């Protein structure tokens, strides 16, 4: 039985090593250029608009002070509210539930691609850690 487990692990390890050598999608350690942690918020200046990418229901339960809700599901209907709050001199920092959620990345991409807003960042922390 032990021999079978060793074979199983050895074959997997060889395949993993091969994948490591040839796969271009290597894991990224650390933050991307457009990602901001709680301790770095002040570096974006005071003219900052917080965008909450969670659902309207989650937004209602609690959100960062002054944040605008812009969720993936209601993007089109909520975009007007965002544009009312946003001015071109503002940096936009999008957050969702935690550092592991992806909706902030999707919303940031849509703001860049569909609205042409360049100064968009992604908050890579739990939103409750947001401190201005």
């Amino acid at each position: 039985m032990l021999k079978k487990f060793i074979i199983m692990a050895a074959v997997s390890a060889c395949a993993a090593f091969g994948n490591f050598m040839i796969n271009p999608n290597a894991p990224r350690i650390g933050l991307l250029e457009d990602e901001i942690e709680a301790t770095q918020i002040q570096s974006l200046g005071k003219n900052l608009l917080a965008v909450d990418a969670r659902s309207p229901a989650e937004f209602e339960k609690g959100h960062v002070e002054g944040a605008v809700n812009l969720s993936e599901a209601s993007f089109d209907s909520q975009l007007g509210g965002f544009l009312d709050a946003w001015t071109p001199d503002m940096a936009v920092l999008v957050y969702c539930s935690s550092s592991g959620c992806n909706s902030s990345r999707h919303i940031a991409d849509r703001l860049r691609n569909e609205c042409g807003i360049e100064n968009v960042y992604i908050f890579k922390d739990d939103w409750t850690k947001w401190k201005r």
Partner: protein
Amino acid sequence: METLKTVISWLLRIILAGVLIYAGCAKIARPDEFFADISNYRVFPVWTAYAAAYFMPPFEIVVGIFLLTRRGLDAGLIASAAMMAVFIILISSAWARGLDISCGCFGNGGTGQYFEAIVRDLALILCAAAIHVLNKPHKKSYE
């Protein structure tokens, strides 16, 4: 009766192996995304998550293949049940800590579907147990 047991056993083996092979194939091309999913559990050091992101997908495929072979069945069953048990513990821990993350089960998935993932993993453990029972050698009485 024996034929029916064999057919059910093979069906369950194909289901269990199929899920594992599919899960492995869905993740093997994107170790970066799987690494992010593992890191989001916030229980592993970076190097462990990095190694697991490369090791786990081929391991799932290999275990799936073992399940379809006669000689590798017992090892495949133990490995698959152990994997599912670990997944259940990890998903439960993320759920208990209120994390809103993807389980990373089949690559890029939605977040927060913990209950569904735990039920699926429990079903797969039961599947492995059923295959074990169905493939037990006969105890013949010579009295």
